């Protein structure tokens, strides 16, 4: 009776890795003092007990002003546990923090340089680990958080706009890869790979003057060349996420 079900599970892969993004609560720590921390936490929980039950929490250190040596993650985890809060990891901080986090079996996340809830003295620049160096020597200039590239992106090159939109005023060649946290605009043919919303922004789009891509992706949802050979192939197109489905729409009216 249970046999068909068993074979079905056998045929399926054990797991599948996917990109996902999740909104998390971050406890921005300004300084670490176990007693005041517990007191403050208790007050907060009293205001909204349901919110805090089994809450996954990330310790944010972008605005931490105290001494790194004072940080005791074990104690911090202990306090949170007693209030049924689950500490997942630590965001920001330097290599020492990273080491401490690892010792306490906490995940370490690169810090965010945006969102300053209060004018704190510039915290230790929690530089996110540099991604693959965008090898493209294409003349590019950073305008705001976006990135403008005027030279062709050639096979084997990678151009990455980690914080904003990416604008390319030249062709993206086959075998090239362009990535952006936001939208990607290509004023030329897209023959390589384009990945928009790499941090999970599902509203990101890819615009190109001729869709000839090897792969397009928005927030981890992707389509390969073979699946793109529709009416929009080799025409100006916009690629966006509609629900869970990646769609290409003609750009011209």
């Amino acid at each position, binding site marked *: 009776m249970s046999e068909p079900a068993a074979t079905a599970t056998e045929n399926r892969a054990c797991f599948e890795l996917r990109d996902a993004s999740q909104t998390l609560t971050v406890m921005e720590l300004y300084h670490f003092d176990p007693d005041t921390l517990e007191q403050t936490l208790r007050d907060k929980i009293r205001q909204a007990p349901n919110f805090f039950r089994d809450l996954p929490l990330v310790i944010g250190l972008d605005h931490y002003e105290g001494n790194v040596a004072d940080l005791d993650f074990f104690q911090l985890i202990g306090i949170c546990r007693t209030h049924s809060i689950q500490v997942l990891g630590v965001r920001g901080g330097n290599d020492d923090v990273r080491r401490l986090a690892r010792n306490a079996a906490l995940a370490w996340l690169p810090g965010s340089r945006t969102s300053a809830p209060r004018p704190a003295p510039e915290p230790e620049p929690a530089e996110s680990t540099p991604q693959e160096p965008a*090898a*493209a*020597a*294409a003349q590019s200039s950073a305008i705001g958080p976006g990135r403008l590239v005027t*030279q*062709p992106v*050639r*096979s084997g090159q990678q151009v990455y706009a980690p914080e904003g939109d990416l604008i390319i005023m030249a062709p993206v*060649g086959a*075998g090239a890869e362009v990535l952006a946290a936001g939208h990607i605009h290509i004023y030329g043919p897209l023959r390589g790979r384009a990945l928009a919303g790499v941090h999970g922004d599902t509203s990101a789009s890819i615009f190109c003057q001729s869709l000839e891509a090897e792969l397009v992706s928005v927030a981890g949802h992707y389509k390969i060349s073979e699946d793109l050979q529709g009416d929009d192939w080799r025409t100006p197109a916009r690629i966006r996420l509609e629900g869970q489905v990646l769609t290409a729409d003609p750009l011209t009216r």
Partner: protein
Amino acid sequence: MARIIVVTSGKGGVGKTTTSASISTGLAQRGYNTAVIDFDVGLRNLDLIMNCERRVVYDFVNVIQGEASINQALVRDKRVENLFILPASQTRDKEALTAEGVQKVLDEMSETFDYLVCDSPAGIEHGALMALYHADEAIVVTNPEVSSVRDSDRILGILQSKSRRAEQGMEPVKEHLLLTRYNHERVERGEMLSIEDVNDILSISLLGVIPESQAVLNASNQGAPVILEDESEAGCAYADAVARLLGEERPLRFLDGQKKGFLKRMFGG
């Protein structure tokens, strides 16, 4: 100061050595003091095409390692004045080309020559990187077929990121496209990419189009750069390419059929 020109392609067998031989011969014919350097250490070919393999005593690697002076290693061409060949070593491998060694040799040669033509090996590994690193100009040799165009695109990217000019933030390497083995009939039949197709993908300036020709093969086998065959279309096409390299305006020739009119319009012939 010599102008350093690298002849490169990424893909093998597209005509780099043939082009190096003809371009350097053409420059020397025009009176420029020219040396052509074989960077394809381990696979010596240039001296065969230049017909000087029997006069090679020392080679590029000997010079780099200080076992011979540049003058001892340079082989003078018998047909064209002002032309010298620096052959590659066949017994070493490409690792023998050190960045400092190549730099030293090129610096020294820069003092006496007007043009140094570097014949790059295929691929994007050490030997090819050494050949292109010092370049002021690059001639990217491409056949009108998809894989060759793809590899040329790759090598253009490397020129823009890994050359000395890129690393030191100087004016970028001047890139020229040389389309070789162009066969008009096969383009018409759709078996080959057209000039427009290649131009569309690579978008760099076109130095010339060398028609596919038996003369190229004959010249290689006889050890004479095809540019010396001034009766052949390929030879004339190379002469035109040299003229364009020197900044002269020349219309594209030997493309046959109706395409000619269109191309003339496109490339300002």
